[in-house]
């Protein structure tokens, strides 16, 4: 699937990664690769626009901090409304995924 993530999927993945704890851009990217078993490779050209969009929506807050190997990095974390958004997007996704799975099963 490479970088051609379904629209909306990337947002959900980012939100879920951040639900674990604050992280910076590279960390989020690595984490998505890891949790998706290497299926999703998120490049900065899609990652940063998505982060900024989510931040402007008020779901993420950003602050500068120090990374694990002592570098200055911008950390993102979920806001209160961001947390609600994770729940909402997750259940929406589950509904869709279940529906598609049923549809595939029915037409197989």
């Amino acid at each position, binding site marked *: 699937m490479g970088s051609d993530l379904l629209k*909306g999927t990337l947002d959900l993945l980012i939100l879920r990664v951040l639900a674990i704890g604050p992280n910076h851009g*590279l960390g989020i990217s690595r984490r998505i690769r890891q949790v998706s078993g290497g299926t999703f490779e998120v490049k900065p*050209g899609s990652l940063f*626009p*998505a982060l*900024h969009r989510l931040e402007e929506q008020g779901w993420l807050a950003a602050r500068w901090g120090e990374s694990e*190997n002592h*570098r200055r990095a911008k950390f993102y974390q979920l806001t209160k409304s961001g947390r*609600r958004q994770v729940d909402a997007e997750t259940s929406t996704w589950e509904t869709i995924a279940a529906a598609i799975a049923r549809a595939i099963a029915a037409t197989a």
Partner: protein
Amino acid sequence: MGNHRGGDRPGDCRDRIDPAMSRLRHLLRNLFQKKRVEEEHDDEVRSYLEMSAAEKMARGMSADEAQRAARLEAGGVEQVKEAVRDVRAGAWFEQLHQDVRYGLRALRRRPGSTAIAVLAVGLGVGSATAIWSVADAVLIRSLPVRDLDRTVMVWQQDLTTDRDRITFSPAEYLDYRDAGRSFESLGALQPGSAIVRLGDTPTALETARVTRSLFDTLDIKAALGRAFVPDEERPGRDHVVMLTNGFWQRQFGSDRHVLGTMISLQGDSASGADATALADGPYTIVGVLPPQLPVFYSQADVWIPLPLDRSQLSRTVRGLRVFARLRPGVLLERASADCNAIARDLTARYPETNRDIHAWLVPLRSEDIGDIQPSILTLLAAVALLLAIVCANVANLLLTRAVEREREISVRLALGASRRRLIRQLLTESLLLGLSGGGVGLLFAASATHVVRVLGPATISRVREVALNGPGFAAALAISLLTSLLFGLAPALKASRSDVTEALKQRSGPAKGGERLRQILVTVEIALAFVVLAGTAAVIKSYLRLDSHLGYEPSHLLTARIGLPRAKYSDPGKREAFFRAVLEQLRSTPGVVAAGAVNILPQADTNQSVSFTIAGRPTAEGQARNARLRVASPGYFRSLGASILRGREFEERDLPGGAVIVSRAAAQRFWPGENPLGQQVELTLSTRRTPMLPIVGVVEDVRQWNVSAGEPTLYWSSMIQPSYSLAVRTAGDPADLAPLLLDSVRRVDPDQPVSAVATMAARLARSQGTTFGRFRSAVMTWFGLAALLLSIMGISGVIHYSMVQRTQEFGVRTALGARAGDVIRIVLTQALRLVLVGSAIGLLGSLALTRVLARYLYGVERVEPWIAGGILVSLGTVALTAALVPAAKAARINPIVALRHE
């Protein structure tokens, strides 16, 4: 996504507000702290790359390798930043800002052609808006009258002598009032004059005697005090006046306590000869009229009731201007038929006075606008042509630029600009061009309308209300914006569709299709310019002809009016003695060349007519003859400077018995192929008939106040009239003699006021026909100049450009052995062809236009060959000069340089 799920949760409301607030906060931050946002993002991307590189180094890569790999993996730092910029709140604003900045830079890169385009649009839009504003104020906006569409002026006309706008006698007015079934209301106004004593000095006043019903007919209400009441129409109760607003301001300083004041009026002769004459005595001021009155042919100072008692009314003295409001639903045609039935009845009952007299109804609006309507239409046509030229100019310019920029656009596409963005940017550039032009146009239109409002002739109704017309400006601007967008879009689409590599390979040579379109545009432009210039020349020529065909010499002529009080000068002998003495005083004044008197001067807006019989011709076979009547003193024609064609001028010996001089038109109409000298005529005056009078001369036609000079006129030698206008021919500046004129009159009768002291040139300048003629030719001259200027810009710009485009071709030709002369010949032939084809089309257009103009303009029957030739030569010169300069340069250029030219 979250909304339909979160609908039943308590935080729902906040869910929707938070994102909105957050976006707003970010929008503001993005817009106003742009630098910080950018820096922070730079830092973020850099830290990402550093961490990514650190990871790779940890896996054993060298520092250099790791950094390169990190960059490669990220996929272009600038692209990342651009992608973030695109999603940021306010991105559209950011991009618009950028487009505008690029657009301005692109326009600045070609300052010459940008300035020309902006000026062209400005000039065109500005002129169009200014003219539309004038037309709207003068022509379209309504008179302040309720039911304007139903309001008419009623006139009589004599179809056998082509005399129109004949006024009504009091008896005729009552006949129409009582028998007219089409009228809801009928009112009349009779202009006259009187002498008022304000303090010690007697002053002459212009008066208007009005019926009570006029206030209803024209919906006039007093601005202060009250209007007349029906009771005041009875003789004896009519000693009340209303002041016109202007007179109230001038004479009483707009004093509101003026009501109830008594002023002493003395009727002079011109106020009516019979029962309608103004009675001498004190009059009470009861009201003040509003500033704007829908009343024409009257510059009255005061309004006085006009009592009409049927038992003692004149049928012969006509002086009433009649206004009417038609009943709802009655069409003009039906009202005319109704009135003409009354006219036929009057002809049957009073053949002496009413033979061949018909009724003629003129809508108040046309009476108001008068001759201006065709002129305004002419102007609007000129505006349309001008806008067409502007559009052709702008289109040409944009096409030219598009060809120049094909390569630039291709390069930008190759470098990754999106097509949508590119098209948007080209459109922004066109819009900028159009808007700057519109700004210049707005400035221009605002100052032009201001000038017209302040300096425009007051005789044109509502000229003081001329103001910049918003919708007019919007329309003109829209047309020019549309043109720039349309012609800006076409090349943008073409360029963005073209194959990038092909376009880059192509050398910037002339694009064949564009070249053809441009040639067509130049041809159209030349044709349009030809039509506008020919139209302008026709209008100006008509005006000059009009001015030079007055029939008399208006310079060095001083005029004044004297109306004798009726009571003091009841004896005709006393009146003759008075005027004779005044003229003698004047003739002995140094600086006076000649002096004469006449009842109505040229350019006065009053008229007097007479019916007459010719000795030896029974009236039964010939109809009752009517002509304009002027009563003149000996020496009048010498003073006026009118040429005597046959016979002689009036002399002293003509006074006791009386003699007649006929105008050229009268001689042609009543004595065709005969010599009128020695013939005899008998005049039917208001109170009596003259004996048979000998015709002693024929005089040139003198233009009265309308365009046609050729109205048959009889001049009768008499000095016993109670009122005359003086015509004094002077050696020097006539204005210098005004005090001496007043002295001469005062020496004869110290109590006698003199009014309307003015030079003939000033009177002429004030008269409606002249002022509008001048106004029109000034505007048309401006149009002609604007059209010429715009065509010069357009034609020279395009020809110049197409020559520059062909520099390479000329280089090839020169390299192959062509001489400079050959190159120049090719260039000139091409330019000449454009001019000839364009002019030929323009000439056809002008011929059509002239047929239309001929109906409205005096002395315009055809396109003069010398005018057509002149236009052809000027347009040709412009085109050839524009072609020659780059061609000469191209011919001299080193072929190697030319071949490299791009």
